[in-house]
């Protein structure tokens, strides 16, 4: 019964994330973080950052990736089996896609009416800058004591910002920062 409640809660949460996921990608991060970390506590902030890291190095949108990952880990960490975790994963991934399916079906039907519609243009003129604000919030929300342990974290941050603006490959940058992590924070056994 407890499992059923968790499944329903996961489904409704990711449905909500799908409905309000304007801007896609990073713009969805503040909403996902708020729901799964702050409100439901399914994963920690560090885990959430790790999912973003995994998303940056694998193909596929962050919204799906976090749905798939959180669906699995939230269920297994409550003590349920791997199989039940995979079901949780499928539930979250389906839930986050349903709003897009409904909205794109409607858009396809009214394609030519919506194109250049002044109501929509006006909404977008406000929505687009707001989405930039959401992406900035995503970065600010992750600049916390869990992800930035000391001054060395800020050095990595600064170097990667500059390298990224210089168009260095993000996957290479993630790999190099992983190596930097090994050297700067030697593992203690």
């Amino acid at each position, binding site marked *: 019964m407890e499992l059923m409640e968790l499944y329903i809660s996961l489904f409704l949460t990711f449905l909500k994330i*799908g*409905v*309000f996921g*304007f801007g*896609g990608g990073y713009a969805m991060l*503040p*909403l996902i973080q708020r729901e799964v970390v*702050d409100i439901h506590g399914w994963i920690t902030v560090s885990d959430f*950052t790790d999912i*973003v*890291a*995994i998303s*940056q190095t694998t193909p*596929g949108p962050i919204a*799906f*990736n976090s749905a798939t*990952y959180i669906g*699995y880990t939230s269920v297994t960490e409550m003590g349920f089996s*791997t199989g039940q975790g995979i079901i949780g994963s499928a539930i979250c991934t389906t839930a986050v*896609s349903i709003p*897009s399916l409904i909205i*794109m*079906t409607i858009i*396809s039907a009214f394609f030519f009416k919506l*194109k250049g519609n002044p109501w929509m*243009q*006006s*909404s977008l*003129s*406000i*929505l*687009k*800058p*707001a*989405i*930039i*604000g*959401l*992406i*900035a919030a995503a*970065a*600010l929300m*992750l*600049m916390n004591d*869990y*992800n930035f342990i000391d001054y060395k974290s800020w050095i*990595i*941050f600064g170097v990667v*910002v500059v390298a*990224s603006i210089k168009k260095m490959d993000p996957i290479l*940058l*993630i790999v190099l*920062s*992983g*190596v*930097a992590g*090994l050297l700067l*924070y*030697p593992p*203690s056994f």
Partner: protein
Amino acid sequence: MIPLIRNEVVNKKLWLGDDEFMDMLALAQSAPGPISLNTALFVGNKRLGFKGSLFCGAGIILPSFIVILLIAVLFTQFKENPIIESIFKGIRPAVVALIAAPLLGLSKSAGVRLKNIWIPITVALLVWLLKISPVYIIMFAILFGISYYLFIKLKMKR
């Protein structure tokens, strides 16, 4: 990802014309959810109706679903490993950097100018410091956009 989709859908399979693809892209970007999913759903609907959407949607979701599920199963077992922990201590600040770095370029293409720069700044502060849910931000932005349009239209009538 967009050039990849375009090459498959427009150049190889001839499912959409180039103009149609560009128009569709604008709408896919304005709808909630990942652009790649929205694009797949639109192309599917165009060719085969709702059923086509379902198949295209499943097609675009499945690869990342399988990859991430495998990572989730493996990663949860190695997470406590000290080597993995060291690696991720280095990766975490880089993740934040990769989110922050493209902001300037994105602002330009989203039409952020001096006169509307208050919008992203206010949104970022509301969500970050006051912990206002992005749900309200999105709803307010849409309502504000529509009422602004009505206001301009009323003014023009006078």
